[in-house]
């Protein structure tokens, strides 16, 4: 049964390599995009922490930053 699933009448090498390529591509794309997202979030946190309390107050009131502050770690501190 397992041998049959693996060999697929001699087509296994083609079928498994096509599925493997797809899943590897998905993993690589997900990892690359995730790293980019985390990097930008870290950059935002670092920049935000260096701001004066006055500037932080101004940013918190701006609609544009509300969502990001809510999703980033800075808002949880």
């Amino acid at each position: 049964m397992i041998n049959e699933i693996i060999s697929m009448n001699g087509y296994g090498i083609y079928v498994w390599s096509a599925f493997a390529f797809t899943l590897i591509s998905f993993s690589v794309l997900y990892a690359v995009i995730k790293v980019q997202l985390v990097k930008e979030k870290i950059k935002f946190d670092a920049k935000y922490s260096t701001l004066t309390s006055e500037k932080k107050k101004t940013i918190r009131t701006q609609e544009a930053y509300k969502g990001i502050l809510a999703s980033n770690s800075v808002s949880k501190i």
Partner: protein
Amino acid sequence: MLKNFEPNKIFLITSKAPKYILTAFIIIISIGLIEALILSPEDYIQSHSVRIMYVHVPSAWISLGTFSVIATLSFFILIFKNKSFILITKSLAPSGLVFNIIALTTGSIWGKPTWGTWWAWDARITSMLILGLFYIIYILAWRIYDNGEKANRITSLIAIIGLINVPIIKYSVDWWSTLHQPASINIFSETSIHPSMIVPLALMTAAFALFSVLIFLMKYNTELIKIKNKGLDRL
């Protein structure tokens, strides 16, 4: 209505949705893989090699669909100067390119046992390769020109010009004599594949579509935070 596409409003959804979409994707792709690799029947001519269809066809559909969306939104950006769509089009491109690469590669792998060759310069395959080139040029244009009016104009033009290739891909198997088989699934006429093969195909298409949305949302968030980072620099 277009105000609903404002980045800050979209961010409220895009920052929360990925974890739910990732969970749904994992569940659906797990079921889809069992159906596609184990439960679905082999083809009476192509035998087990037909299973490659379950990754090849959804990838091609999503790659084509994504580019069509990018081109349509680019039209609004270019003609109506709609800024809300810029981030959306930019964020859609990476997953579109990867699905195009998957479609070409799995098609090539499928071609070897079916046609006896890895590659043929027939109309369908060549037009899909051209779509891939359009994706690459589009993404490179964003990198070269960075953000700004010039980048918006050039990338929108590339997408709109590339849209000409979409009907060519769709109808290439009807217009020319190609190695590639004609479409087996038609929305408006009778489908020529067996229902037992439609189930895994539908599951894999749903899973791939979810993955495409997931990558889009993550990329969209990245681009938005990048813009806000630049805003912090100016403070």
